[in-house]
């Protein structure tokens, strides 16, 4: 099991969580995403904690679900891999830690977390990168 730690890449990704679903927008690529149910729970933990591993997240979430921790960890790891591929999270080395979250009142069925991706906004990015004036000045006018 990888010791990679994950943190939300806050320079690229903005998000809101509403009614248990996260909407995430990648400011650089124009892709946007929906994370519901278990995926939203993972995203919430990532937002609230810097540098957490799949194992740490799974250990924190598993008590809420009616599934073995292995299954939860496999689902979490798969989601983290997708988030990393979409550049929504940055990675580093994981220091050992535990997270505690409130004990659930009743266990829910575990559904594998899914990252839903939308690409219809990509051609909306009309503007070239921001240019700051430097001492050297600008390219010459034709």
């Amino acid at each position, binding site marked *: 099991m990888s010791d990679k730690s994950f943190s939300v890449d806050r320079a690229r990704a*903005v*998000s*809101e969580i*509403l*009614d248990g*679903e996260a*909407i995430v*927008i990648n*400011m650089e690529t*124009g892709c*946007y995403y*929906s994370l519901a149910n278990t995926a939203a729970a993972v995203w919430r933990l990532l937002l609230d904690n810097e540098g957490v591993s799949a194992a740490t997240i799974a250990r924190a979430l598993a008590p809420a679900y009616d599934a073995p921790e292995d299954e939860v960890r496999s689902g979490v790891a798969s989601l983290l891999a997708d988030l990393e591929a979409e550049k929504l999270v940055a990675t580093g080395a994981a220091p050992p830690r535990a997270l505690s979250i409130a004990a659930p009142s009743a266990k829910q069925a575990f559904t594998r977390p899914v990252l839903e991706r*939308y690409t*219809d*906004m990509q051609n*909306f*990015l*009309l*503007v*070239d*990168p*921001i*240019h*700051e*004036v430097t001492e050297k000045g*600008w*390219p*010459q*006018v*034709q």
Partner: protein
Amino acid sequence: MIQEVGPFTVAALDEAFERAASAQGRIERTFAIAGAPVRIAFAGRALEQGLWPALAHLEQRPGDAPPELTIKVLDEATSGIPVPGLGWTDHPDVTSPNAQVLLKAGSVRGWFEAGTGQVQVLDAEQRVALAAYRDARALTFFERAAPVRMILDAWVRRRGLHVVHAAAVGTEHGGVLIPARSGSGKSTTSLACVEAGFAFVGDDYVVLEHAPGGVPLVHSLYATAKLWPENGRKMLPGLAPGAPPGPEEKAVYFLHERHRGRLPSSLPLRAILLPAITGGAATRIRPASAVTALRVAAPSSVLIGEGHPEALAVLAALVRALPSYVLELGTDLGGVTDAIRGFLADLATKGER
């Protein structure tokens, strides 16, 4: 302090404007956005004719208070005055004719479009902006429908308001915000509504004001709407666009003369409508979740221009404050406008109980 922005020094643009205005005459108009007066000065009648109609519904008599922003507008071709920097095509990042380059220097921001040869510059601290075009007689349909948008967008945001990519129309019961992608029926709906006697605040860009706990307000920027010509001919055959659209251009409808009295500067918002084309004849309005509304509304408002990540939280607060509905659009446009009118009346009745 006036600063350089790329090859466009504000001072040089200002000087070019004064020369153009001397040569062609200076036409000044005052208008207000969200209550704040803006003066726009055109060098020459061609620019005023091309750019003023979209803003005319917001006209005010100049008051005693100085304007909060003065926008000076000039072009090269009709004035005969060369505008420094409009020929700037050498930039390595300008990869397509439609590319916009965003320029920043201190408090000054500029937007340059290489293909059309236009630049807009805003010095918010000095309360002055300049817009320069290659030819006043060849303004793009986009610019005529939403003049000096980069300047007004940035200025509005500096005032703590938000620009949202959505339409907004309403009745005496208040307004609905209609955020949506191109092709979802947003513009056909907003045009059909104003033709049916609704108040019209905007078709593409509107200004949102939403204080925590307060009633969200939508303020008008432009009294124009754009439709692809074939949709315009099919859905609103009695309506003529402002000018014949060129190839690959949307038709622009100017509303300020035809719908005088139905173009308020603001409306309170009562609900969010998410249009969806069903193919059926009848229109239906059914509840939608707040998160669905956010997923539809946020991306284009967040990603437009240089990107506005803060818009996501603003729209999240809006979808928490207002109910959202899917507007299943039937092909009968009379049915669409009746449904929205009835919906707003019902909401008002429920609110009173």
